[in-house]
Structures are given as C-alpha cells and as structure tokens.
C-alpha cells in the first residue's frame, strides 16, 4: 500500500515538473508538446475526444503500460498494434476506466477521467470487449438495450428515443436477424456483433474496440471495419486494438505501434508500418508490400532468423522470385534484382523492399545496358541467388532469351546459390548463410 502511494507521489512531480518525454521512444508531435503544466496539458487535449498522458498501469510489480501518450480526435480512427502482451487491451481498459492508472492521466472529451462518474464516462466512450461474460440466456435485443443504461434514470423505462437508438444500432451492426434469439444461442462472431450493437446503442462520441474483428469471418470483419470507418467519418472517434496489421493499415488514420507497454512508433500507417518498426515491435522479420486490391500496406511476417546481413543479387522472375525477395528482405539482406520485365511481381516486391531493380520493358528483349547493369550488381554482391529459372524443367514465363541473360548474369557472380522455385524459407536462409553452398 505504501508502495502505491510512493509511486503516485513520485509520478506526479515528474509530470508537473517537465520531465515528460524522457522515456518516450517516439517522436510523435503530440509527445513533444507536453512538458508544460497541468492546465496547458489540459488545453492541449481539449480538442481530442480521448487523450492519455504519461499513462502507466501496473499489475502488482509488473508494469504493463509505461508512459503512453496518445490522442484520438474527432473523425479519427486510431489502431493500436503490437504483439501479445504489448499492453493494447490494458490501454483500452484504462481509457474506459475499468483499470486504474498507476500514474498519468486520461482525458475524455476534455475532462479528466478520474473526475467523471462511471455514468458520465459511459456517455462519452462505449467499449466493445473481446468477449462478454454473459451466460444467462438474455435475448439479443435485451443485451443491446443494456447499451441505453447510461441514458436512463433509476426509475425510467425505455422510451421511443431508446427504442429508436436500439433499432438503429442493431441495423448498423447487422444483428436484427437474430434479435429474438438467446445470446447463448448465437455464434462467437454474432456475439461480437451484438456487443458492437450494444456499444452503438450507447450513442457515445468515442468508441473503444478490443479486437473487434478477432472472431469474425472475412466478410463481417470488413463490414465491421467499414462501419467503424463510416462512424468516424461522421465525426466520432474510434480507437481499436487490432491484430491484423493489414486491416489496421487499410482502415486506420493513424496506427500506434506498441511493444513492452511502450509506444514504439505512431503516425499514418504508410509511414509507421515499415519492416523495421514491425520487425522490432513483434520481434519478427517482416516484409511490407502493398495490397494490390486496396493499395494499403500489406504486412507479411516471418520468424526471426538471426542471419548476418549480406549483399545479395537475385536472378529470377514471377511469384516464386517475389517470395524469395520478400523472405530475404525480411531477414535483413541488402538486395538487388535483375534483369526482370517491368511490372513483374518480383520487381514490385523488390521495389517495396527498397532493392535495386534492373528492369526492361515487357516483351522488348534485354538490351546490353540492362545486361551490363545486372552483371555489375551480381559481381558486387556477396552471392547471387538463382531462383528456379536456371532449372531446365522449370516453366519460365520469361522471353526466350531469358535463360541466356540469366546465365550471363550468373557468370559474373562471385558465388552462386541455386534455390528451387518452391523453396522453403528456412532452407533458403540456410543456403544463403552457408558459404559452401552453391
């Protein structure tokens, strides 16, 4: 008990005294502006529906959230991403007041959360939990009606306004179809949408969602995210913990990357979700490409490989080569590729990975300059990786002279590593790491 008091006492002066930012890893603009006193801090956050400052939460001796600063403005959808145990859910629970912060502050619509009653807070922020503990067989409609609780006086019944809000919420979340079913008789995904409907019935300006699509099928996952996106575009604010990085990249205005309870990076998905940030946060190797259907970042992660970074030239085309490029880039190797036709998937992947790519227009044949450039890259590389193409039985989609070009480029290489088109990621990395392999 005295330890808690000591922590509070120690935390407060540091917040007031301008020591803020010392242990914040990110260069987020919101963070830099905050070494002022409480009043100024309050003014800074007045525009945001949700704001946290120096937020720390501990469970016993374990600090699960440390000095987190973030804001969610009206019309903004913020995604919290990070590995399991990064503190995503805890931050959301601190925002809704279901866990007490050990230090730091949370503002809801300009007021300190600690000064709001549960009822006042529940009119400002509604939360969609991962699961509900409800096991009594309430009807779905009744569960959604519970979302009106913050708006009802102790002796009030539901009036027409409440009924309309409940109907709208059920329609928006697509749960009308089973409104009269028992909550114990709907599937996990349907249950999650019922919880979403309940939060919508609360009619709050801010929404907090914990893994809103975790148990949804692909159609309902997208529908749910589109719905949240629409609500945000109508002026609400939303913050969601999201496991699916592609989903976060596609729908969020900003993402906050968390690891070990701290903010590692924050900003628009295009700038924040790069291979380095994702790799560091998740302690994995990541390749960040682009989803051709949505043109948003698409993240593929691989287990950590611990190989020394090398300078590699890749020869090959098509999806097999694209996979090899992605895996090698994720493992931290410095890559070049060529010669490939323009627009080949391997060329796109290599460009996303920041590699040097020697391209020629498709079906135009390979000119001498391109051939020479590729030979130079192969010569400069520690090794040249030949994917599939050199295998005479491989069905290569490249023009007829491609085999000759490949042979020419390989000829210039100091060391050649041949891998089959369907190579396993582990075999590939082992082959690259082993100096004796050819």
């Amino acid at each position, binding site marked *: 008990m005295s330890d808690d008091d000591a922590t509070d006492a120690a935390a407060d002066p540091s917040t007031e005294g301008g020591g803020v930012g010392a242990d914040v890893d990110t260069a987020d603009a919101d963070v830099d502006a905050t070494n002022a006193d409480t009043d100024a801090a309050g003014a800074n956050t007045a525009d945001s529906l949700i704001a946290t400052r120096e937020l720390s939460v501990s469970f016993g001796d374990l600090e699960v959230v440390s000095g987190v600063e973030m804001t969610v403005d009206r019309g903004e959808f913020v995604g919290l991403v990070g590995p399991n145990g990064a503190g995503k859910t805890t931050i959301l629970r601190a925002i809704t007041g279901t866990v007490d912060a050990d230090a730091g502050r949370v503002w809801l619509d300009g007021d300190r959360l600690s000064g709001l009653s549960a009822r006042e807070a529940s009119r400002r922020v509604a939360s969609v939990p991962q699961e509900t503990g*409800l096991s009594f067989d*309430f009807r779905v409609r009744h569960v959604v009606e519970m979302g009106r609780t913050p708006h009802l006086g102790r002796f009030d019944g539901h009036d027409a306004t409440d009924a309309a809000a409940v109907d709208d919420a059920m329609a928006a979340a697509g749960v009308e179809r089973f409104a009269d079913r028992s909550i114990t008789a709907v599937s996990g995904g349907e249950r999650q949408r019922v919880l979403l409907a309940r939060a919508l019935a*609360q009619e709050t300006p801010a929404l907090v969602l914990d893994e809103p699509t975790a148990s949804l099928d692909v159609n309902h996952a997208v529908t749910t995210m589109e719905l949240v996106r629409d609500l945000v575009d109508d002026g609400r604010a939303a913050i969601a913990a999201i496991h699916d990085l592609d989903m976060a990249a596609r729908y969020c205005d900003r993402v906050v990357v968390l690891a070990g309870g701290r903010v590692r990076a924050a900003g628009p998905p295009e700038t924040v979700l790069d291979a380095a940030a994702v790799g560091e946060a998740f302690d994995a190797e990541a390749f960040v490409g682009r989803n051709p259907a949505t043109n948003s970042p698409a993240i593929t992660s691989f287990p950590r490989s611990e190989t020394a970074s090398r300078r590699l030239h890749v020869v090959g085309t098509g999806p097999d080569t694209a996979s090899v490029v992605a895996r090698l880039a994720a493992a931290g190797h410095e890559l070049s590729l060529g010669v490939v036709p323009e627009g080949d998937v391997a060329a796109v992947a290599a460009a996303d990975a920041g590699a040097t790519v020697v391209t020629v227009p498709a079906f135009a044949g390979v000119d001498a300059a391109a051939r020479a450039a590729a030979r130079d890259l192969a010569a400069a590389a520690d090794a040249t990786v030949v994917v599939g193409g050199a295998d005479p039985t491989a069905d290569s989609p490249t023009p007829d002279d491609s085999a000759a070009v490949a042979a020419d480029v390989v000829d210039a290489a100091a060391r050649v590593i041949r891998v089959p088109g369907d190579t396993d990621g582990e075999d590939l990395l082992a082959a690259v790491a082993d100096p004796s392999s050819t």
Partner: protein
Amino acid sequence: MRVRRRATAWSTVLAGVLATVVVVSAGIGPVRIPPVEVAKIVLNAAVVPAGVEVASTGAGPLALPGIDLTYRSPFAFPVDDVHERIVVLVRLPRILLAALVGFALAAAGTVMQGFFRNPMADPSIIGVSSGAAVGAVAFIVFPAALSATLTLPVFGGVDVGLSYGTGVSLFAFVGALIAAFGVYAIATRHGRTPVATLLLAGVAVQTFLGAVISYLQLQAGESLRRIVAWLMGHLSGAAWSEVAVTAVVVPPLFFLLLVYARDLNVLLLGEEEAHGLGINVERTKRVLLAASALITAAGVAFAGIIGFVGLIVPHILRLVVGPDHRVLLPTAAFSGGAFLVAADTVARAGATELPVGIVTAAVGAPFFIYLLMNREVHEL
C-alpha cells in the same frame, strides 16, 4: 414499458396464486374449514384506518401531541366463532409468516444467483444462515447468560424483558448480519469486493460457523432437540408480532432490490462491462449484498434454516419468465411465498408435524435433480 407490463401481469397472477394458497392452506388442518368461510374470516380480520385522534401523551415540557389511529373492519360476515379463532389466532400468523419468509428467501436467492452469476448460489452463500444459526443456537444453549448481556451497561442497562422466542430471533438476526458483514469484510480489499473472493470467503466462514454450531450442539444437553428443530426450519408457534416485524422489514428491502433489478441485469455482463455501461459497480454490489443479507436475516430469524426455497424457486421462475430481473425478481418472490406456504401446509397436515425444512428439501432436491437432468442448468 413492455417489460413493466410483463412484470406487472406476472406479478399479479402470482400474487393471486399466493392469496389462493393462503386461503386454501388456512382451511387445512385437524379442523377442516371451507375456503369460502376462510375468505370471509380473512376479510373480517382485515382492518382499515377509521379515524385519527390527536391525544396528548405524557406530561412535562417534552410532551408532544401523539397521533392515534383507530381501526375498523369494513366487513362483518357471519362466521363460526371457533373457526374464526382457529384461523386468526393459530393458522393465519403461521401462514403469513411462511409467505413472507418464502417471499424473502426467494427474492434473496434470485439476487444472489445473479450477483454471483452462479446457479448454485442461494441466500445462505454469504454466511447469513450459518450466522443466524450460531446466534440462535447460542441463545438456545445459554438463554440466561445471553439475555443478561442485554442488561449490561453498554446497552443502556435496560431490562428489555426478553422472551425466549424473541431472544432466539434477535440473536439469529444479529448473528446473520455479523456473519454476512464478516464475509464481506474478508473479501474486500482497497474498496473492491471480487465476487470470486466473496464466494470463497462465504464458504470458509460457513465451514467455520458449522464447527461452532457442532460444538454448541455437543454442549447443548437437554436443549438439543430445540436446536435440531430450529436448524431444520420451523414455522410452528408463529405469532402475529413476528408477522408484523417481518412485514415491516421485508417489503422495503424487496422494493430496494427491485429498484436495482436493471443494474443487476447489467451486472450479469461482468463487472467491467457493467462499469463501461455506467454502473457504479462496487456501490451496486454493496447495496445488493446488504439488502439480500438483511432480507434473508429477517426470514431465517423467525423461521430457522429453510433450504431450497431460495435455490429452487428462482431457477424454476427463470425457466418460465426468463432471466430479466425486472420480471424475475417479483415473480420469484411471490412464487417463493406460495411455495413455502404450501410446503408448510404439508408439514403440518400429517399426523406428526414435520419441520418445514424437511419438506422443502424433500420436495426441492428431487425437483432440482430433475432440472439438472432435463435442462441445461449450467446455462441458467
């Protein structure tokens, strides 16, 4: 609005059932009295305030005008004098006490099952019954010594002239509240009372108090029989004064619980979700616990330990009317009253009177097993 209509309709029907059971029960016994005559007797016994008299009470500077109400009965049906005395003086107080106790236990059981989100919860789960038993048994074993404590200077040194029956009830009531508060205090840390801790604290305290009761029984000697009767639940020898006390204590607590019925529904979602929906979780839990403990204590203080009413009745009604406490709580309460009146009628109708606790358990346990085997009780 729809919910209120359902609640009112169901409650009216079940209140009617309760009234019918009361009238039928009052006709059953060694002397058979037809229900119509019982109804006339009951109506004759009903009184309404007839006038107000302002009278000066006492003398001296603090004398204030007192207000005396006079009563009259609006009915005067001709009835058999002996029958009237049997019904009014012997059967009716017992039946009404059974109705009130059953009402209280079923209401508390409903709230506890919701509160703990556990179908096995009943009113005794937070140690109320065990505490009441220790208080009552202690008084039965040491009546003189415990009566004497009330005349100690700390209590103002007033000799309240405690009768034996009142002493048992008073100590049962106080014991029940001490045990419930003890369980609450054990389970509460930093202003939070986790339900799981409360459940375990309740089990621990019940176990400990069980040991105390066993020890007292060993020391009981000749009063052992009375202890066993009390522990099995009994309504014989009920007096109008007991009915009056219960009738004053139970309804306000019931209405308090009813006011919190919607909060209890939301609490079923889990405490975090309830908090997110604007419920002041810890305060709501304290109100529900305190009201349930008091209403249970009021029930067991006069009637002893009557099991199964608070467990079975809420279960059955949940199957019938659903889990919404705004409907479930009043319907379970009226049904509990009717059930206990019926059970007590069975208990006293035979050649040898049985403790009513035996009847409720004998009827209740098989029915509970039936539910377990035929319904998905785990889903409530």
